[in-house]
């Protein structure tokens, strides 16, 4: 299956695209199946990455509509637009959708699309498993929204605190829907994480030693390692809640020796790292955009990598700051205050390094840079309000108020959505071969920046005025009306911005200006191939000898000796990126879809009767056998 290739000849061959013959062979070897069934069988990391991104934006729209409904309800006191039953479902769906179905998957999708390109390989190591990840994510989302539209949307919050989310206070299947989608989304995240970690460690282009990995790839690597450690905590938590609800265990039942706080610990042990799982890829995007805009390497590469890694570690030491009001011992609280303040240091170091990158570079003011500047403004505010939340006494005042709603949107929209939109503007030419409209992008930014601040800035004030979160209405005499109205108007502006963004995407897909291989003059390997890249990414795999291969080398040297008539990947050593051996990966297949469906039947069916679980497992055996069978085909 593999052969030693340490002595693969590295030639000074100018053509990264390869010869005509090689390309037609590669085309045939890596071809995706055609037709509708072919769509269901795809195993290309770019196709699957794009599917994640498009699907995530679909959920983003749903979550956004839910947000608009909430803003309309809160626009004036004692409004009767939504009743509490619907409001509780909607705020739960909004949080669940945005966290599990938009923010994380969209970052996974971008990682899946660009990491293999940026490290110079042809595909992820487990393409079929990777496809399972996407189908799981899609089926989970469809299941959640089917429940919601059948008046069965979860209604105990995206955090599902017990005992409110337990069977005594939430009977019926509403909370069960939340519990099950955790399995779907987290398994999908774990699959992407294992694919990308192996890609980064074992499939980098020859010469790409650890200290030459692009910063975006570093950010994804750290994020994926965080996924591996964080997701099992929430799967455990949701599994325990599930068995409390369905088979009467007592993990969280205080009356039977369980503990309601156990839920909060295990949920937030996942929940806080989750924020960094969303935020770290965005940091990588910011670094990528800055180096292209400033036409120089990002300042302080080593410092930024160490900051990313230490953020990954510290991110696991903060979860208790979500629980300061539960009455934990003072000493323990001080520890978590210190950790929560400390995580500002690596983030600060990155911000300083980026300003140093911009300093004296005369950056080009393209829309993607504008989104990054918007990120600076908004994220720094969000980070500073985060410091207030880290302080126990202050947190006890503003915890669970609209101040926190303001803070978390400053961090997540400012820290992740602004860089994300910038990155999409930046990478759209690579993904589609066409530019996004520049003028519309400027308008999108303008409306979003204005609308965002108008919506979320007043929320901080509302928190100080005593407005708790998750209230479906409020009494007029409390005086929260005017600021809430302002906030609702801002939400309208955000909707306009998002609409403009979609108009831009749709128009540009058909009529956008054509983009060449490297329209921004950027440094990393994804710009060394056509736009959009061929299914095999590179005609010949590149060899790199610096951090900025496209700037340092006139012509990239390439690897020869890989077979072009089979799906072969080049496996390299983790530390220094020297070639090790060739590895063949499987091609497109419908089996991932089939096995995802059989397993989903088991998981979703178990909500209604436990016996569905073994039934689903049994039904998964034939496709699993078929999967192993085909694995050994030449």
């Amino acid at each position, binding site marked *: 299956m593999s052969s030693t290739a340490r002595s693969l000849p590295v030639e000074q061959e100018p053509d990264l695209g390869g010869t005509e013959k090689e390309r037609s062979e590669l085309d045939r070897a890596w071809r995706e199946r055609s037709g509708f069934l072919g769509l269901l069988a795809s195993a290309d990391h770019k196709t699957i990455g794009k599917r994640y991104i498009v699907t995530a934006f679909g959920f983003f729209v749903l979550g956004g509509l839910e947000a608009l409904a909430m803003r309309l309800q809160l626009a004036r006191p004692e409004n009767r637009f939504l009743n509490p039953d619907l409001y509780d479902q909607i705020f739960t769906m909004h949080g669940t959708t945005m966290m599990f179905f938009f923010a994380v998957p969209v970052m996974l999708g971008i990682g899946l699309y660009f990491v293999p390109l940026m490290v110079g390989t042809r595909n992820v190591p487990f393409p079929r498993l990777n496809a399972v990840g996407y189908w799981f994510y899609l089926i989970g989302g469809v299941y959640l929204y089917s429940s919601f539209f059948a008046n069965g949307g979860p209604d105990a919050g995206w955090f599902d605190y017990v005992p409110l989310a337990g069977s005594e206070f939430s009977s019926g299947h509403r909370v069960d829907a939340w519990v099950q989608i955790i399995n779907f989304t987290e398994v999908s995240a774990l699959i992407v994480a294992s694919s990308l970690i192996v890609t980064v460690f074992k499939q980098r282009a020859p010469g790409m030693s650890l200290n030459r990995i692009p910063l975006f790839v570093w950010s994804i690597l750290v994020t994926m390692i965080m996924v591996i450690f964080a997701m099992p905590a929430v799967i455990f938590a949701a599994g325990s809640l599930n068995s409390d609800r369905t088979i009467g265990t007592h993990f969280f039942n205080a009356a039977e020796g369980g503990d309601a706080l156990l839920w909060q610990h295990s949920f937030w042990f996942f929940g806080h790292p989750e924020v960094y799982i969303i935020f770290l890829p965005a940091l990588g995007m910011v670094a990528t955009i800055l180096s292209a805009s400033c036409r120089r390497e990002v300042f302080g590469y080593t410092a930024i990598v160490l900051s990313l890694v230490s953020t990954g570690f510290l991110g696991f030491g903060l979860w208790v700051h979500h629980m300061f009001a539960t009455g934990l011992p003072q000493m323990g609280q001080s520890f978590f205050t210190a950790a929560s303040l400390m995580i500002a240091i690596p983030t600060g170091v990155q911000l300083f390094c980026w300003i140093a990158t911009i300093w004296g570079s005369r950056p080009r003011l393209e829309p993607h840079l504008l989104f990054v*500047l918007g990120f600076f403004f908004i994220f720094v505010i969000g980070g500073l309000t985060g410091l207030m939340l880290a302080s126990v006494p202050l947190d006890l005042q503003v915890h669970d108020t609209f101040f926190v709603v303001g803070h978390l949107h400053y961090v997540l929209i400012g820290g992740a959505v602004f860089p994300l939109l910038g990155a999409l503007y930046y990478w759209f030419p690579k993904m589609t071969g066409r530019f996004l409209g520049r003028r519309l992008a400027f308008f999108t930014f303008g409306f979003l920046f204005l609308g965002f601040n108008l919506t979320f800035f007043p929320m901080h004030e509302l928190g100080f005025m005593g407005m708790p979160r998750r209230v479906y209405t409020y009494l007029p005499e409390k005086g929260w009306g*005017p600021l809430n109205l302002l906030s609702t108007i801002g939400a309208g502006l955000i909707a306009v911005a998002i609409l403009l963004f979609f108009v831009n995407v749709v128009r540009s897909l058909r009529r956008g200006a054509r983009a060449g291989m490297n329209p921004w003059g950027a440094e990393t390997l994804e710009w060394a191939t056509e736009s959009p890249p061929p299914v095999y990414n590179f005609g010949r795999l590149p060899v790199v000898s610096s951090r900025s291969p496209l700037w340092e080398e006139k012509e990239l040297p390439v690897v020869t000796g890989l077979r072009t008539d089979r799906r072969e990947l080049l496996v390299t050593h983790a530390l220094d990126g020297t070639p090790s051996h060739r590895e063949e990966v499987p091609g497109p297949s419908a089996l991932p879809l089939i096995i995802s469906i059989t397993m989903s039947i088991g998981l979703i069916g178990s909500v209604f009767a436990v016996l569905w679980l073994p039934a689903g497992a049994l039904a998964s055996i034939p496709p699993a056998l078929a999967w192993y069978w085909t694995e050994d085909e030449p």
Partner: protein
Amino acid sequence: MRRTGRGSCAALFLFAAGCRGVYSTLDPATREAARITTLHWVMYWMCAAFFVAMMTVLAVAVSRQRRSETPEGDRRRSVSVAVAAGISTGLLLVLLAASVVTGHANVAPAGAKALEIEVIGHQWWWEVRYPARSSAHDVTTANEIHVPVGRAVRLQLSSGDVIHSFWVPNLHGKKDLIPGRRTSQVFHVEKEGTFRGQCAEFCGYQHAHMGLVVFAESPRLFEAWLDRQRRLASEPAGGAERHGREVFLSSPCVLCHTIRGGGAFGHKAPDLTHLASRTTIASATLPNTPGHLAGWVTDPQSIKPGNRMPPNILAANDLDDLVSYLRSLR
């Protein structure tokens, strides 16, 4: 943090009224809340200064027209980044120290002379008890708490169902009420006034309307109030009130409500022994007037959808007399 009370009130002068008042975290009435407010402003100004400095440097960096690529420039940038990181770390240590000192002062034990009050959270109302040496003198009320100025108050918090969180912004930060656990909160009220609070942990349908009122009074007024609350319910004085009591005792009301001395012993809903002495009903959602009381008794579900009180279909004169009786429970 370019927001917060004074700062954004200056910017949003229209809403300046919101910075003071009965829900504000920045208008402290206790020693504890005052400490938090001080810490708030320390953090606010430090963070505001940091934000302005950072944005200024960023604006200069973006708008500078000269492109420089010299080793000298690289070294200067390294030094600047290191200095900025050092200053930030220093500021964080100051914040940490301020926070820990404040937090430590705010959890000092209350001492033996503290007034003990038990608060039990229910979906969606607050049970309030003032335990006495003999249980015959215990006071039980709901949703309205009276406390004396100048004496330490210790709240013993627990929950009857799901997690709630006790929060009166003028008095102190939040403390959760967790099933199977006991938590407590201590504060020293320093000025008289009426303060409003609300449950701060999502607890189901009527989380939004789980309010409470705190009356901080002089010790003399407080003792007088407590004495009145210890008494049994007054006997109905007139015919209407007597009929009202019969209506009460012959309806489902008795299954959930208690009227000490009035023959009702339910334990699922607020104690009504001195209902008329309270200023609000329905967990500080409606003012305690005859009209609101009649509306609440008749159709509580349209006022607070999902709450535990069923509607009561009563003949017009029965309802009038019931309200008269409830209004007589001073």
